[in-house]
């Protein structure tokens, strides 16, 4: 195994190194950056969901006190396709003067028809969202297994047909999108402090936009306040800030305000579907048929993961028919959000399975055990560590663990079997995700003569304790403590790195960090051996000391050994292999992608809810999560990620929805008081169990724990009431309506 066999630090719990800075406000985010002579910018946006810009008059604005620069984004004659679409931006001395300037702009529009509701847009005879196409419907997927109509329904003892769905939600990053842009005097070098999930990609995009030579744009992201998939480049607002900074020749800060953040900072697409599902008397699912649609605003991408419908159980279901329509609407484009398509897939699969289980009078846990996707035997033979070859085994273990944790056998009852006004229910869901790492992620580890150790990479910390992950690995190899490692990340001048999307950062960076630390260690021991007149093989590292076997096992404290180096520092550099020779490349890839890191996780979650049948209020009262993620680096941060994913999923199930006004096409809750997110008293105790599988290598954990949560809550509501609430969020109104329908 390429990871150390005896791990002193890896896999244990460590406090995050930057915790004190974050907790006391010393950590500087892009939103907090203040540069000398810095001015402020803001974008003026369309109030109409669909319109043609007839005229723009900025003359009065440009005469306002404090005005510094103007940047036109869309000219007169151009169309806007959602309320919030960018038109122009102004920079001014203060945010207050800026508001005055923007208020003085006059824009005339010719208002055009729009749709903001999926069901209405689905029936639209015209295209209101722009681009190619006669209507708003695109990206139709329509697939079926062989002879579906003839063979699917044979031997089905019970069938169920039902409607399920979940609404458009917003990322609601607490630090909004944006950056501070600063040019040098000759306008040849640009530095930005950006809130981004992709530091080098942000710098590169700006370099291309401004036609600059390589190395002329630097992006710095010391801290960033949440991204969840929505922050992969400078975006229009970042490019706009750089334009304005160049025109004004002053540093410009452009961070979206809350209304902008919610209206243009990203959405997760909706998904609504009719599912028809049937099983044999044993509970074995014989067929799954879904006709679904959803909107990602003006985007054309899938709103579910079409290829993975039905979710998780697909490989074991013989007959599948699926249809998906993407319904464009006049709202912002969708952005990747924490497992794109997967939470929607879970809703369209897990809920139907519980309804079918009820018809068969089967326990949903038993139903899932019967229908687990089988281990892929070919895959298992080729590589015993990959997920498809071991998925049924992993799920079975996870279900056994969670069954004991939540005392399922005792606490589960038949749907609606409870008594009284407040009904309790249990529901479960499974999920899966990739989470594999990749390069480039060059990492440098420097051991200095003064005893300090520095690790550098351009990667970023989204709140995942990335600095601490790096420090744990370096400290493990050098026999130090994580707090003794200085970590510099979030600076594009350190070279390329992969964007933090798809749960890839921990595997992508930890593999190269390990190699860089080992290379630095070898260089260190080589240099030290020279000074001690011995061979490197005679030296070994133990916690805090170098042991010299050539001299009676002399124990030299690490810092003292650094002082003996005779050079200012030694370095180790490492990156993912990009070897042209294919055979060698395959061997290296095997080491990096199936031993150092790997791909594919499962995970099982159970929700307990209490539903007030008089008010319709659903409260998630307890929650259990069992999660595998290969080799755990920092157990504490891993558990935090899982609990955080669960909370995001509970919000998704019970509270969140972007609500649009049909008449004006505007979002009516682009805020935090009517766009609901739960507080601490709204959230249950969450019981997390991590399955450490170090033999699989490191696998990312960002998306998996939020995927099945909403579906588990939905099933718990069904279990409590004995009646299905079809659409999330499961608001009091919808719960009462479902109860009324039954009566």
């Amino acid at each position, binding site marked *: 195994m390429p990871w150390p066999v005896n791990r002193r630090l890896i896999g244990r719990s460590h*406090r*995050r190194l*930057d*915790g*004190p800075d*974050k*907790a*006391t*406000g*010393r950590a500087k*985010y892009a*939103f907090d950056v*203040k540069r000398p002579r810095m001015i*402020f910018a803001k*974008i*003026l*946006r369309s*109030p109409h969901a669909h319109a043609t810009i007839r005229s723009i008059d900025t003359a009065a604005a440009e005469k306002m006190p404090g005005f510094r620069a103007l940047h036109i984004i869309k000219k007169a004659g151009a169309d806007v396709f959602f*309320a*919030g679409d960018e038109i122009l931006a102004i920079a001014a001395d203060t*945010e*207050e003067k800026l*508001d*005055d300037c*923007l*208020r003085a*702009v*006059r824009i005339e529009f010719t208002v055009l028809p729009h749709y903001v509701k999926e069901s209405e847009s689905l029936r639209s005879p015209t295209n209101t969202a722009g681009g190619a196409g006669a209507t708003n419907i695109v990206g139709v997927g329509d697939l079926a297994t062989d002879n579906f109509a003839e063979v699917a329904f044979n031997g089905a003892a019970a069938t169920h047909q039902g409607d399920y769905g979940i609404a458009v939600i917003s990322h*609601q*990053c*607490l*630090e909004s999108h944006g950056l501070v842009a600063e040019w040098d005097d000759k306008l040849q070098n640009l530095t930005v402090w950006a809130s981004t999930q992709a530091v080098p990609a942000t710098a590169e995009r700006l370099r291309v936009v401004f036609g600059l030579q390589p190395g002329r744009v630097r992006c710095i992201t010391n801290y*960033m*306040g*949440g991204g*969840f998939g929505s922050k992969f480049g400078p975006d229009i607002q970042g490019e706009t800030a750089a334009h304005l900074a160049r025109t004004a020749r002053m540093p410009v800060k452009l961070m979206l*305000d*809350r*209304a902008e953040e919610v*209206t243009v900072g990203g959405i997760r697409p909706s998904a609504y579907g009719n599912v028809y599902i049937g099983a044999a008397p044993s509970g074995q699912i014989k067929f799954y048929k879904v006709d679904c649609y959803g909107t990602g605003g003006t985007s054309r991408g899938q709103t579910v993961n079409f290829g993975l419908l039905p979710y998780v159980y697909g490989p074991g279901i013989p007959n599948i028919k699926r249809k998906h329509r993407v319904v464009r609407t006049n709202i912002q484009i969708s952005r990747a959000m924490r497992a794109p398509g997967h939470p929607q897939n879970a809703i369209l699969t897990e809920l139907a399975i519980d309804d079918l289980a009820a018809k068969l009078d089967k326990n949903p846990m038993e139903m899932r055990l019967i229908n687990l996707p089988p281990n892929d035997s070919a895959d298992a033979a080729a590589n015993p560590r990959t997920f498809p070859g071991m998925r049924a085994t992993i799920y079975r273990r996870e279900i056994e663990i969670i069954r004991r944790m939540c005392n399922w056998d005792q606490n589960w009852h038949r749907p609606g079997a409870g008594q009284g006004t407040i009904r309790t229910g249990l529901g479960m869901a499974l999920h899966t995700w990739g989470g594999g790492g990749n390069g480039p992620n060059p990492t440098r580890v420097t051991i200095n003569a003064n005893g300090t150790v520095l690790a550098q990479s351009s990667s970023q910390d*989204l*709140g*995942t*304790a990335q600095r601490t992950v790096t420090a744990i690995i370096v400290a493990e190899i050098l026999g130090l403590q994580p707090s003794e490692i200085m970590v510099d990340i979030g600076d594009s001048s350190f070279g390329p790195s992969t964007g933090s999307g798809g749960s890839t950062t921990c595997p992508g960076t930890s593999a190269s960090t390990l190699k860089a630390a080992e290379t630095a260690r070898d260089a260190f021991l080589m240099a030290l051996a020279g000074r001690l007149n011995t061979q490197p093989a005679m030296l070994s590292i133990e916690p805090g000391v170098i042991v010299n076997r050539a001299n009676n096992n002399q124990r030299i404290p690490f810092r003292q050994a650094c002082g003996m180096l005779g050079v200012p520092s030694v370095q180790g550099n490492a990156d993912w292999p990009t070897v042209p020779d294919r055979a060698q490349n395959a061997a290296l890839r095997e080491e990096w992608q199936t031993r150092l890191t790997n791909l594919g996780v499962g995970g099982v979650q159970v929700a307990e809810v209490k539903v007030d049948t008089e008010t319709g209020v659903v409260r998630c009262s307890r929650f259990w999560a069992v999660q595998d993620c290969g080799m755990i680096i920092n157990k504490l941060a891993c*558990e*935090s990620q899982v*609990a955080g994913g669960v*909370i995001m999923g509970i919000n998704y199930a019970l509270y969140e929805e972007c609500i649009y006004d049909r008449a004006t096409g*505007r*979002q*009516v809750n682009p805020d*935090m*008081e009517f766009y609901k997110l739960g*507080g*601490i*008293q709204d*959230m249950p*105790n*969450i019981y*997390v169990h991590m399955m450490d599988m170090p033999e699989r290598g490191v696998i990312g954990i960002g998306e998996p724990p939020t995927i099945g949560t909403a579906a588990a809550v939905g099933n718990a509501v069904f279990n409590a009431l004995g009646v299905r609430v079809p659409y999330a969020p499961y608001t009091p109104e919808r719960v009462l309506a479902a109860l009324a329908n039954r009566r």
Partner: protein
Amino acid sequence: MNEQETPNTEPSRREFVIAAGTAAASTSVLGLAVLDAPAAEVQGGAAVPAVGPGGVQVAFTVNGQKVQVTVEPRVTLLDALRNYLDVTGCKRVCDRGTCGACTVMIDGKVIYACTMLAVEAQGKQIRTAESLIANEQLDRVPAAFVNADAQQCGFCTPGFVVAMKAVFEGNANPTPAQVEKGLQGNICRCGTYEQMRDAIYALCNQKRGK
């Protein structure tokens, strides 16, 4: 659709109210107040001294340090702290009194700094999260957050820390439920509440029954 605004006329009571309203209530939709939000006419006059619309000198104490700043009356305390005084532990997130990211203590009481105008803070004692570390000595409240890993992206954390600190300053021996209640006015998007509960139980010297 726009209210015509003329910037250089005599300051009237009405304009002052509009300006203050702009700051406190912020924009309605999309910053679209910029394009079409009608300004509400306010009738009647209380005995409030009119200041502005130009810069006004305000003096208060931030984390034990006396500061003076010249801001327009429409500037919130939050923006005065962040944009004019570079005190950025209080974060601007919702900017309308919902999320708690800008929570500070004023004369010992917790408030959302986005809901108060800077001119209202004249002479007051303001404490932010930055006051909870001195000479690398971390106060026990942020230390509990760090120990329990009760933070991820960290953008909401200083607000939570101040809110929790205020609970303990008002009640030396609160129950965990009382501390939780003191945090209900704050929102965390990464979902660190479970770890916050660990921090709360540690600070209340109670074992968490899980």
